[in-house]
């Protein structure tokens, strides 16, 4: 078993943090995004969508999509629970994870995709769309600050995959000057808490 990944990219980090929280060790193999090794024929056989991370199981089959990889490990090693404790909680955690993906991570990622030098030539960039996305991301962080006024973690009283998604999204925001503002007291409290967990260094 191993995971194909790239240290500096956001989605691989989501899986690394998840596995660190679970106390699971899986070997990592680097695929260089700078030289677009993820778009070469050998890698496209492993993941036809070309993304990272990808989990290679012992029988040689592959699971792509970070949240699908997390789901696999959640099912084989349920404790500590990161994706919900019963039917309703699993849905609540999934709802919040998806909200963090759409509202925070995607806006920040789209901002990077459409304004960064890294993506110049890789995709047709629309700079103004990148800037609108950045603004939307900032607005959603303001909203997240209000959400965290009455709860310790994003989906409620427990640390879950939703916290991991939001943490990675905000950290990736450094690439376009997005960060937690001092006056966002709840968000700052939460950010400090999730960043100081040992898994944040994975």
């Amino acid at each position, binding site marked *: 078993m191993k995971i194909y990944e790239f240290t500096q990219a956001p989605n691989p980090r989501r899986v690394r943090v998840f596995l660190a929280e679970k106390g699971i060790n899986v070997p990592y193999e680097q695929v260089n995004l700078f030289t677009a090794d993820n778009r070469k024929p050998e890698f496209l056989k492993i993941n*036809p969508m070309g993304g990272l991370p990808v989990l290679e199981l012992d029988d040689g089959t592959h*699971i792509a999509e970070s949240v699908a990889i997390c789901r696999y490990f959640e099912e084989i090693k349920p404790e500590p629970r990161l994706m919900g404790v019963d039917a309703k909680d699993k849905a609540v955690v999934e709802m919040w994870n998806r*909200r963090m993906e759409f509202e925070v991570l995607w806006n920040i990622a789209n901002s990077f995709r459409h304004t960064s030098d890294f993506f110049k030539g890789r995709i047709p960039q629309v700079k103004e769309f990148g800037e609108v996305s950045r603004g939307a991301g900032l607005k959603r962080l303001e909203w997240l600050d209000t959400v965290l006024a009455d709860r310790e973690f994003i989906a409620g009283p427990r640390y879950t995959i939703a916290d991991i998604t939001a943490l990675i999204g905000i950290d990736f925001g450094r690439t376009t000057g997005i960060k937690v503002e001092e006056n966002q007291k709840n968000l700052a409290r939460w950010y400090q808490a999730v960043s100081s967990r040992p898994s944040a260094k994975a």
Partner: protein
Amino acid sequence: MKIYDFTLAPNPRRLRIFVAEKGLKIPLEQVDIFAGENRTPEMLAKNPAGGLPILELDDGSHLAESVAICRYLEGLHPEPNLMGKDSREQAFIEMWNRRIELGLFAAAGRAFQHTNELFKGRLKQFPEFGATQRETVAQQLQWLDAQIGNKPFIAGDHFTIADITAEVAVDFATQMAGVKLDPALKNLARWHKAVSSRPSAKA
């Protein structure tokens, strides 16, 4: 229990098909997106993100995000299984569901939002971006045709949530986002005909 729904929007349709496949009957209450009813203070209190569908539980609490609602219903009613039984199956189906969401479905949504009259004034439209997204949709349809190959369904040998997402994405792309389905994509056509003739497709 009831579902806040809007017949024409794609995400509510994903849930309606899932509910129909499960053989469940959950009352629907229409929320008119064209009239902005999903953004009233009353509706934002139920779902701060403003989207549909929303499931209202018997205790008055709310669940949003179509796939999260599906996950809840799958937990209450495991059969027929639509999201996988063991660890591997769950991961595999989730992978395919996400691939369709992040690829075909998202591109069709963006193409629609950035070129359709209905969205003028709702967000800042970038028509040239919308046009690139239509191209992405066409590429994704080709890709999906190749991936389906001879498989009966998207994620393997039985109908799953990944088929629902793909079915709704293809229909939305062709009916609302102005993309034509190339008849040369024979695997896609075969699969689409099969899923569209299931009773749930009319939900």
